[in-house]
């Protein structure tokens, strides 16, 4: 029975990966996020485990496999970590008795609570609470778009000239603009890539090209963009063209509001943006492609890295936040143990022995003298 369940899981995972692969262009991230979370919910429901640690291992293993297939889709990583956090929180009871004491806050930094069995929650309760937790996450995900729109529209006022980007690919921006149009009288300027078809369902006053964005910025009052991923220092990944728009906006002192759902906020940092920049098809005309084949390399990155200083505010589904404060909301969704003690790190641990590095022997600490036995 256990092996059959395992095959089901492998099948589910394969189905998920095929689903992502099938889409030719980059789909709205909510769809991907919903599919990944559904997969994780099934994993959590059907997987057999006797300890919380076993579940965490299975979760991380499956997460690694899916992210290895699509390394530039950070949403997958974020959701695996979010579910892992729920598992850790529900699996180990916190000391409610001294929750407000300083002892607790300092200890939490240093001690590995998994070793303390007295704090474990019974397995049956844990399963139910975990499933409830993931269900709450799913609800939050379903309502995130409405919440972002509700919070974000406070920032726009009548008479504004709003510049947007990637209108075709971001359903969040589409909902956002629809909502503000109902509430206010304003002008919308949409920056379109030349290869993108015009979105005739949605009324936009001006369609401009990216090269015109800098000139038109002098007339714009607000810029609204949609992020692909946001990092804890406030930097973000935007669709291509986003960074140029931010730079022009900075030049003209125009505020830049970036919309991002909670699952786009990552708890880890990106050491080198160039390693994850994936390139899309160049979109050249057919006869040019024939002439260029083998001679010219046309780069069309799918993602741009933007510094924290270029963004004015991030609009999430719960709050509007300054880029320099993004790290504060990380702890709501992620657990530090997942980010820094991941299995990837532990594999290299054996190699990182001080002696092997040639940096002195590991310190020997004499054991504690128990005064009661003295």
């Amino acid at each position, binding site marked *: 029975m256990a092996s059959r369940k395992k095959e089901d899981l492998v099948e589910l995972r394969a189905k998920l990966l095929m689903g992502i692969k099938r889409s030719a262009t980059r789909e709205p991230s909510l769809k991907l996020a919903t599919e990944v979370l559904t997969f994780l919910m099934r994993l959590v429901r059907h997987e057999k485990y006797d300890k919380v640690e076993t579940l965490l291992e299975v979760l991380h293993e499956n997460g690694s496999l899916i992210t290895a297939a699509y390394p530039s889709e950070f949403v997958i990583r974020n959701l695996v970590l979010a579910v892992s956090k729920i598992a850790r929180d529900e699996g180990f009871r916190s000391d409610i008795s*001294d929750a407000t004491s300083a*002892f607790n806050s300092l200890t939490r930094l240093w001690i590995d609570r998994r070793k303390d069995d007295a704090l474990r929650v019974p397995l049956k309760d844990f399963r139910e609470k975990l499933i409830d937790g993931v269900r709450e996450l799913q609800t939050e995900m379903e309502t995130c778009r409405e919440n972002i729109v509700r919070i974000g529209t406070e920032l726009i006022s009548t008479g504004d000239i709003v510049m947007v980007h990637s209108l075709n690919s971001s359903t969040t921006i589409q909902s956002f603009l629809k909502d503000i149009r109902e509430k206010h009288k304003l002008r919308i300027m949409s920056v379109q890539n030349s290869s993108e078809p015009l979105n005739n369902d949605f009324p936009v006053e001006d369609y401009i090209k990216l090269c015109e964005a800098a000139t038109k910025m002098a007339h714009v009052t607000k810029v609204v963009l949609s992020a692909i991923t946001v990092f804890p220092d406030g930097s973000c990944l935007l669709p291509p063209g986003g960074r140029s728009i931010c730079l022009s906006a900075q030049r003209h002192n125009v505020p830049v509001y970036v919309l991002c759902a909670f699952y786009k906020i990552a708890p880890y940092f990106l050491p080198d943006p160039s390693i994850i920049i994936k390139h899309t098809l160049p979109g050249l005309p057919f006869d040019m492609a024939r002439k260029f084949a083998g001679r010219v390399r046309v780069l069309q990155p799918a993602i741009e890295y933007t510094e924290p200083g270029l963004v004015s505010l991030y609009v999430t589904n719960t709050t509007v936040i300054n880029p320099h404060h993004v790290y504060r909301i990380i702890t709501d969704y992620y657990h530090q143990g997942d980010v820094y003690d991941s299995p990837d790190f532990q594999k290299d641990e054996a190699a*990182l022995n001080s002696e092997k590095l040639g940096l002195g022997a590991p310190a020997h600490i004499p054991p504690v003298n128990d005064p009661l036995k003295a």
Partner: protein
Amino acid sequence: MSDTERPPVLDQDRVANDFLALLRGDSYLSSGIAAIRVLYDILNNTDASTTFQVIAELESATSAMANAEQASLCVLTACEIFTRYVTLTPSEILDNRDFRVVLGFYRNRAYQFLQRSANSPNFIARIACAFMPRDGTVLVHSYSKVVLRVLATAKMSNSIGSKFRVFVTESRPDFSGRRMYEELVRHGFDATLILDVSVGSLMSSVDVVLIGAEGVLETGGIINKMGTLNITDSAKVMNKPVYVVAESIKFVKKAPMSKREITHIALYPQKPINMSLNITEARDASGLFRRFETDYNNDDKQNHYQQVDYSPPTNINLIITDLGIFPPEAVGGELVKLYA
């Protein structure tokens, strides 16, 4: 005061000697961790009978060690954090009539703290590895054990496949950068010794700046060997990432109002510049830095140099510690948790 209340007399010389012996025994041991180790030994062997006596002993040991070598900021902060952590007890244990239970608790906490701290450079090296460039240049300043460990770990770690070269500043006038250079060459790095004054012009060929810290302040700024401010300012202008690696025992709960206040915080005495050195002596590369360590016979009070400087948080991209990776703004929040 009765006999039981008077704090036990601690042999300050012995404490200082133990501390210096530890540092001499292992040249890669950070002075903060060595200080904690000495405090742990004292706590493990103490016959104090009240919490007040324990704290008094630890504080007396701290001042002994601080006076041993030139007053070092990381020794003081490490000892303060250690004392706070160890003596922070829940009320049910503190109310116990038998002090031996409390003492046992303190000793266990000290052991955990020491274990965690002794392992912190390895943890930092592990998570900082990813920030080293694959095939580029890293700029480091002066001699820092943590930075050395990060570079050595990145080199060894297969996933990075590192071929990066390292620029080391000479860091006059004590030439500690030469010591770093010798260590790097010994570890097989492609290292280049550069002049302190050439940092501005060489910054364009650098990819990453990696520096340690003597102290990390509440603002997110750092106190480090003199010359760090030049480096971080140049890096900021040229848009190069600056990563600071420091253990959490180096967090200082102070925020300087001006650069002049650094001397009060850092407690580093101003050192005289050796004016007797002439140009022909300066050309002698090999024995020079050793000569500087003992050659402070200059009485000229005007020509003194400050040993450390303060780099503001706006110059720093990320601070990598054993508590995690933070943008400089987040340091204040973490400090509150440590010192709460």
